[in-house]
């Protein structure tokens, strides 16, 4: 257990370091923050004053070292635009993002597991095809189209749901749906594939030879095995979602999430926020991945010995 954890930690640390470095240099290469911060029309002299003020005249190497040092003393500096500690700015956005993420994942699981199982069992039946068509459509419609469409239908025309922010439970409905569309599609397909893999296995025949009723065979023996494969897929999905967040959904629904924060600070080259934000997201993703790895190893008895010893 300990060594496995250590190994995961080592790999996390490596990935982490690569990300930190990459983000740092990519941001600096992509242009001088002043050109994005100060906006239009500034004299050369003013420009220099600001460059100095924001400490952008320090050498790249100095800035990099300072950034690395920040991991030791926890001082990640102030945002260029909002002169607040970036830690606060990012922290504020984490929870709303996580909420949305969780509700999207919840909905996804609720819908796509049954759908995927149905699609696998009735592979040659219209029912299976119908399930897959639902999944295909979820994949086929860009999520901002889905989001704007929902806004128009449920809020603009029907006046049923609120669109702005994350105040009440009702506020969750549309963003959750918009975010889950692709996820549901993906997970349904994965569930179907995993189930198909399992359905062809010998132990399923054994289960039937025991005289077990079909639903028991499918759920207890089939889904349980398939879920192990699914676990890693879900992990990737969650991680991917945690990473890319949902800039689009967040900005359409004015959701104060981290995805929007990252993209807007990237566009405005707010390096401190961007750096810390990306690092935070990366840590979240890495943690999710590690957690899934552990859960995966735990769920699959064949891997469990890796945890012991």
């Amino acid at each position, binding site marked *: 257990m300990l060594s*496995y954890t250590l190994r995961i930690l080592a790999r996390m640390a490596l990935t982490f370091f690569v990300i930190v470095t990459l983000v740092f240099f990519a941001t600096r290469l992509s242009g001088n923050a002043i050109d994005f911060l100060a906006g239009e029309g500034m004299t050369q002299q003013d420009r220099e004053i600001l460059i100095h003020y924001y400490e952008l005249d320090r050498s790249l190497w100095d800035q990099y070292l300072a950034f690395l040092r920040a991991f030791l003393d926890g001082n990640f500096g102030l945002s260029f635009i909002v002169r607040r500690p970036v830690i606060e700015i990012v922290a504020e956005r984490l929870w709303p993002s996580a909420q949305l993420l969780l509700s999207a994942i919840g909905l996804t699981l609720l819908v796509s597991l049954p759908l995927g199982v149905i699609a696998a069992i009735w592979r040659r039946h219209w029912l299976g095809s119908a399930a897959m068509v639902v999944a295909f459509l979820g994949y086929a419609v860009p999520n901002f189209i889905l989001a704007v469409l929902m806004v128009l239908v449920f809020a603009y025309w029907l006046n049923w749901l609120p669109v702005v922010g994350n105040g009440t439970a009702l506020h969750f409905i549309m963003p959750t749906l918009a975010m889950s569309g692709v996820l549901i599609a993906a997970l349904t397909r994965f569930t179907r594939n995993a189930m198909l893999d399992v359905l062809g296995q*010998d132990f399923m025949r054994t289960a039937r030879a025991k005289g*077990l009723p079909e639903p028991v065979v499918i759920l207890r023996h089939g889904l349980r095995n398939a879920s192990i494969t699914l676990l890693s897929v879900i992990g990737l999905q969650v991680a991917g979602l945690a990473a890319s967040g949902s800039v689009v959904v967040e900005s359409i629904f004015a959701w104060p999430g981290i995805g929007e924060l990252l993209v807007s600070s990237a566009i405005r080259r707010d390096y401190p926020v961007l750096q810390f934000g990306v690092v935070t997201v990366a840590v979240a993703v890495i943690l999710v991945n590690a957690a899934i790895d552990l859960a995966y190893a735990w769920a699959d008895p064949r891997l469990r010995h890796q945890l012991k010893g």
Partner: protein
Amino acid sequence: MTAAPLLSVRDLSLAFGSHTAMTGLSFDIARGETVALVGESGSGKSATALAIMRLIEREGGRLTGGTVTLHGRPTVDLSALAEGQMQQIRGNRISMIFQEPMTALNPVMPLGEQVAEVLRLHQGLDRKAALAAARAAFERVSIPEPERRLVQYPHELSGGLRQRVMIAMALACQPDLLIADEPTTALDVTTQAEILALIKGLQEESGMAVLFITHDMGVVAEIADRVVVLCRGEQVETGPVAQIFAAPRAEYTRNLMAATPKLGAGAPKRPASAAKPLLEVERLSVRFPVRPGLLARPALDYHAVNEVSLTLGRGETLGLVGESGCGKSTLARTLLGLEQAVDGRVRLEGQEVTGLTAQELRPLRGRMQMVFQDPYASLNPRLPVHDLITEPAHIRSPMTRRERRAMAGELLERVGLEAAAMNRYPHQFSGGQRQRLCICRALSVKPALIVADEAVSALDVTVARQITDLIARLQREEGVSFLFISHDIAVVERVSHRIAVMWAGQVVETGPTETVLRRPLHPYTRRLLSAVLHPEPRCGSVPRDRAARQEMPKLLLPRGAHPERIALRQVEEGHFVAVRDTAELLALQMAQIAPAGGPARAAGAEAGSVVV
């Protein structure tokens, strides 16, 4: 014959899609009787079993005619039963053991739960009672430490134990009929013997009927009362086991009997041994580092091959036998430089092979080739045959496409395949044909030595016979030397001039084939011989030499430690055995003479009578 039948199969016909898998099959099984369903691969044996269980529909097949009647309380026509009612019968009145014990068990469910599930379903036990009953079922099939097994998972058990769990599961509800579909094919001879004995014992206890599916005539002789012989979806013969063996009527049955290797049928004549041996192996050791944890530095070593010494002359075949996992393949792979030896040396035609880099090994590849254990798996499924079988030659000296095709044609004809087959892909060949493709590949570079690793163990007897004949012919015609690896002693006997018996990474006995088989000394050799099933009804029922089971030396050791190594001593001309001292040797010789020993009877008495 006397009792009313328990199961009557009448005119059964089966089909998969448009492909007819079985026509007009009829047989009965009485209570307490064992009927063996034999026939070569693909003859419809499994299909029949699945049809009786009515699981064939799930596999894409269907019953196209005939009836299957299960007599008793109540009598039902299985072929017409609804799925719901069928579920009452499966696992309850009829249960089934599948061939592959690893894949037939649910890998993520504790074993206890898997067995308890049947009991809860059919006997309405609650969770606790079902688990207790599962434990009892484990005990009945002599699973050691049954308590612990309840919470273990399939992968934590050896193949033999897994098969026992399968049996426990099948017997949990004391079915009237047990269908066993090749329950031992995947197991090693010694384990096979144990499983068969177990089934037999249980059957005697409970009086259930058994439908036993196999293609191994030795197994049939061992276990069956009556035999149904199938050939390409048709029933060709049926009768009491003795009659089938003594006087087979159908031609197919006769071929089958003829192709079945019998221990003691005699070994080939040794060639005049040349002055210099082709291959010399000296105190070769191979270890695998084992990490106790994933990050931990390797702290343990698995001693897979431990100071093995061998020699092999030109044109000679050395049979290497030993049970699964004893290190045969590892040794073979090391000889070919596919695995690094930690110690010892291998010389081929006087040239040192060990310690060479992949680059340096390349020229030597032409001199030694390997035929791998599983022919299908060792042929790249995506390459056409002409590319596959000429690859070693092509790598040695690049050839044009045309040259490769010409060579492929020649090679295929030499092993008795059509030249036109070169355009096909491996999956378009039968098992035996694939094995020949492997041999073609080995021959493409005119090697002096071919290592054949379990070249026939996965094959049907008739096909296996073709391969061993081919090997013998190649040896005659081209003077190739073979290292023939197998755990099937009867096959080894047929092709080998000499035998080396491996056990726990060491060679424990070696000598001329007949000598070793007739006068085995090492307890392991004797146990191995005793486990061999003879395609002769009734001879197997004699009690076996079980006591001889010996404690295996530990092979997984901390860094630096070495397993005990026992030197070989010569006991007669060319016959060596591993013993610690003369006293032990004497004791072994005494045991050999004593009449109680199975092996003496098995190999000594019969083999002797043929050879002399």
